[in-house]
């Protein structure tokens, strides 16, 4: 990246950011907050809960990209690819209500 970045480093001793259960307070007083620029540690993605990954990236009412197998009597017969990007009509088409 060519633009200059003002990264602040995570203060040492700060506990890992990702928890699977609520954590108790870790210290009595906190150091002054880093500049407003987002500081993100590179999370080891294999540790991220798959549930979080799915909930973050999928919105079932909007982008449905799933496959389904139609079976009869436990025999797989038809493979259906459900790929639909559903778009609100009034966001795509000219507004017909303005008359």
């Amino acid at each position, binding site marked *: 990246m060519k633009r200059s970045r003002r990264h602040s480093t995570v203060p040492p001793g700060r506990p890992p950011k990702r928890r699977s259960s609520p954590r108790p307070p870790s210290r009595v007083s906190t150091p002054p907050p880093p500049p407003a620029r987002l500081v993100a540690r590179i999370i080891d993605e294999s540790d991220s809960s*798959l*549930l979080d990954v*799915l909930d973050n990236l*999928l919105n*079932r*009412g909007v982008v449905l990209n*799933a*496959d*389904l*197998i*139609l*079976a*009869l*009597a*436990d025999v*797989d017969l038809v*493979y259906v690819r459900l790929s639909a990007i*559903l778009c*609100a*009509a*009034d966001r795509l088409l000219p*507004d017909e*209500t303005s008359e």
Partner: protein
Amino acid sequence: MRELEAMREQLEGLAKASPPRWNADPEDVRRSVVKLVLTLVEFIRQLLERQAIRRMDAGTLTREQTEAVGLALMRLEETVRDLGAQFEIAPEDLTLDLGPVGRLM
């Protein structure tokens, strides 16, 4: 925790990358087909309803449009419910479980 266990099973299903199955019950194929069709219709009906509510909130529906869309949604919901009742399918049965992605509705 039962829900966690069930969810973990579902997520492992995705990890194996095998798609969910709709398996028509050979003893009652008609009911299975009706259930699938009604589920998809109800899914679309709810999408339409959600969008209509958004338009209401945004104020981009006239009074006539609100009445017309509301009436259509109401009739559609009644139709789905009545057809379901004929096959002893309750409204809460009309959901497609997409496994780890969650329920359709």
